[in-house]
């Protein structure tokens, strides 16, 4: 779980204009995406699964080599 820049945020007991500009300025959707990648695309398990996927893809692909680099 990613925890970023949390302790410095002031708590509020009511809605006030002081809240403007005081939020945690981070996009939770983007953070989630990176969190998932961080936890899954690493280590032996992740590499093994990637290799499996690639092998599986190789079997499926036909001999149509028209792509370029």
């Amino acid at each position: 779980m990613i925890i970023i820049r949390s302790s410095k945020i002031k708590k509020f007991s009511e809605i006030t204009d002081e809240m403007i500009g005081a939020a945690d300025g981070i996009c939770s959707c983007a953070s989630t995406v990176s969190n998932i990648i961080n936890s899954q695309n690493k280590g032996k398990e992740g590499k093994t699964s990637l290799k499996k996927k690639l092998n599986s893809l190789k079997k499926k692909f036909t001999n149509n080599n028209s792509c370029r680099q």
Partner: protein
Amino acid sequence: MPEKTDYSLESDFVKELDRDILEFIRRGMENQDEDGFNKLTLREFELQYNTIEPYKKYCDKKGITPDIAGNWMQIPAVPSLAFKEFVMASFSVDKAEQAYFTSGTTDPRRKGSILRDKGAVDLINAANGLLTRKYVFQNVERMKILLMTPSPQMAPGIGMAVGLDRVRTEFGTPESAYLITPRGLNVEVLLKALLDAENSGKPLALVGSTVGFIYFLQACETEGLSFKLPHGSRICDGGGYLGQFGECSREEYFEKCSRVLGIEEYYCINVLGMGEISTNFFDNVLDNHLKGKDEERYKVIPPWTRTEVVDITNRIRLPKGEVGLLRHYDLANRSMVLAVQTDNLGFETDYGFEIIGRWKKKPGKLDAEEIKAGHGGKIMTQLGNFLLRRSLKKIGNVYRKIAKER
């Protein structure tokens, strides 16, 4: 003593309000009914004032009540941080059909909730369905969509996942796929789809998190990879990034889309979407291109919304072109609050607005110029940068292995 008005979801008040808002949204983008908009905002304000206790207190402190407010501009706008501190729901939360986290909430101890009942879900679906059709998929019924986001089954608390699942079912073909899976970013699915599109000539849509796309584009450039996607392929990004993983201005982003993917600039559509605002704000570029209209790029303000840019210190509306904080009024926000004061920095254009970043309060300091060039608003983290870069290190190898077998 006058009878107390019933503001429950089952009440005539809410049912009629939902019906009228939905009808207003369905009148589409040419609707110029200012008076109708104003009346609906005041009815919505009455509901939210009387059902959301923290909001009522806030309004009372400002001296604005439904009896006093004469137009939408007088309705107090709630700072977006309030969604993290309080339950901002105009209905009994046990009737919520949707619940996900607020934008900018990475601290699990402070996660706010966006709550919508069924009527509110209908409103958001109607609004964003109409906009997505017009600004992203106007010239195609359905197409293959690759989503740079997890599925809602995997990440039910993420607004982007929930919203893009609707896009997938409404505009995608059956082979559409999520790129973020329980096993991480599926690089090979992405590369394979790009190669397949090149070979088949069938256009492809890439939709999702800005940061993922930028890293992918940068990784491709590092590895010397490029594709020529069929004409009509498009990329629709949202969520922004912080610009800490290398400079990428808006112009550079479009250049990368063209150079790496072969996607023309008018098929690059940036979207501003945040949990606290139901309606998404889309770039006008594809719609303009299809109309043959030559106009600057900006975010379109739909008729059921208003967007103002206000001064950071005194919160007074600024002239067009001046940088300040974005404030949105959205009729589709019936289940929360109509008016939201965001921390997003932007400026008004002649016919819309643009976002350039997010403001973090520093006494006496605003360095908007520093962040003005970033694409889609710079609201990503340094950590995110590191993590995504790491996952894409192997992209060249993956590509070469896939290509070799084809």
